[in-house]
């Protein structure tokens, strides 16, 4: 585990004193609210105008999540999964190239990957409406290549539009969370000793074999972290679906936003939030098991 740190000491009171403000903050404003959420999810809203629902072990809110909002829930994980795979497909080559061929520009290049974080998330998403506008360059190019028919057949688009379709939402999610995929993969690739790759070559491994047997396994912790940092925010997002999607691409985040902030249906919104969190936790544990947890320590 952690390498010995010179001068590290065994503490009695000092470490707890240092920890207490930060930990107290997280308990009060992260853990306690989750308890509020659980309690509210089991409360009953007696009428549309009952804004102070009372706790009553009411499990019906959870049933509604699947019966009423099942399609939005499924779509969220589908879109988030597709965006995560796309981020991996384009983010891994970028991270690999910067780590192994970036030379003395490596820090600058990885800095460029972070620059999008310094402009508005909403405005970046809105900018895609300009790029994907009907009769814009992108849509005309797709139409020229005959791809609009293929995309429509795949049910990714409607008519020959791209805006207001699932494709636009998946593209927006991919764009917005790409840096979260690139950064952890880069960190794990950067740590790889180039001599290991040379050694694989000396042992007659070709380029592909050296990658598959040496580089890829060593970068799996980065792939794991990057996938979580992409999939989790993407599955709960409602900004991309709001600006880029149509009625056929509303996600579960849009439902929570509408239930909570517009309809003031707190029990309903609370149950959806908790189901979302439970499914994500289960998915993360399953994924950790599939990739092999011992490599991730």
């Amino acid at each position, binding site marked *: 585990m952690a390498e010995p740190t010179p001068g590290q000491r065994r503490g009695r009171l000092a470490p707890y004193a240092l920890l207490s403000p930060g930990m107290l903050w*997280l308990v009060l404003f992260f853990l306690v609210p989750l308890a509020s959420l659980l309690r509210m999810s089991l409360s009953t809203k007696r009428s549309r105008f009952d804004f102070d629902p009372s706790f009553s072990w009411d499990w019906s809110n959870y049933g509604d999540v699947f019966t009423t909002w099942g399609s939005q829930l499924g779509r969220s994980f589908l879109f988030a999964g597709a965006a995560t795979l796309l981020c991996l497909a384009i983010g891994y080559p970028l991270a690999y190239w910067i780590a192994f061929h970036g030379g003395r520009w490596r820090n600058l290049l990885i800095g460029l990957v972070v620059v999008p974080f310094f402009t508005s998330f909403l405005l970046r998403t809105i900018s895609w409406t300009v790029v994907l506008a009907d009769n814009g360059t992108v849509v005309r190019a797709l139409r020229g290549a005959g791809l609009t028919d293929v995309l429509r057949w795949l049910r990714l688009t409607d008519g020959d539009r791209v805006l207001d379709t699932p494709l636009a939402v998946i593209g927006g999610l991919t764009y917005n969370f790409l840096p979260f995929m690139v950064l952890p993969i880069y960190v794990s690739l950067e740590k790889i000793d180039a001599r290991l790759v040379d050694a694989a070559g000396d042992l007659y491994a070709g380029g592909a074999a050296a990658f598959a047997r040496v580089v890829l396994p060593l970068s799996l912790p980065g792939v794991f972290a990057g996938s979580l940092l992409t999939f989790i925010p993407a599955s709960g997002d409602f900004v991309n679906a709001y600006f880029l999607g149509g009625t056929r691409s509303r996600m579960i985040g849009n439902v929570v936003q509408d239930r909570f902030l517009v309809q003031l249906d707190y029990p309903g919104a609370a149950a959806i939030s908790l189901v979302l969190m439970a499914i994500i936790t289960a998915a993360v544990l399953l994924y950790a098991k599939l990739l092999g947890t011992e490599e991730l320590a």
Partner: protein
Amino acid sequence: MRPGAGRAVLTAVAAAVLVYLFVPIALIVVFSFNRPTGRYNLVWQRFTLDNWLHPLADPAINDALGRSLQVAAAATAAAAVMGTMVAIALARYRFRGGALVNLLLVLPLTTPEIVLGSSLALLFINRGVTRGFWTIVIAHAMFCVSFVAITVKARIRGFDWTLEDATMDLGAGPWRTFSRVTFPLILPGVLAAALLSFSLSIDDFIITAFVRGEGNTTVPTYVYGSFQRELSPQVHVVSTGLLVLSVAALGLSVLYQRRRT
């Protein structure tokens, strides 16, 4: 395929992905120089410097910008202090419960923002706390504490704490030791974490949407709320301005660290 060809393909893919990352950013900058005909600054008409000559022309945006900057400053200050204390505790001491602390730090970062936002808003509603400026600060400080603690901890891992003992041996008290030795050494890490916190806070939309209550717009909540009616070029000006300032701050902090080492 020859090795050279493989590398050329890889370079082309990497370059294309970098371009993809910068397309919307370039559009934001370009559209800050646009003179739109309607209420939406989404179709290029013609070049103008007017938006930049009157960057604060829209009072609603100024109000939102002022609140965003104040929230970010307050949340960053709180998170920098609390997060750095947590990082020092984790890096410098061996104690029971370290794993639990690390788990509690990571959990807010792996929880979807709508869950963080809706649960915190419910806490405020249940306790009868009016949602406003301070509830936004509390929420932002919550996720920023985790970011600061994790970033600073990574920076000071392997730090040689015997330097503190040496300072004490030379007769300096604990406060002098901290202010003259420990603090200058951890400062670059704390500054980098603070910069990250500030940019996370100023751009946060989802959590803010839940905990802000009526009114109390920040720049992102203003953009979302007004998009039904308009998208003024001043939004692009403000966003471009913040981009330039953040990149400048990032550049300065890199230069500062380079000079020190």
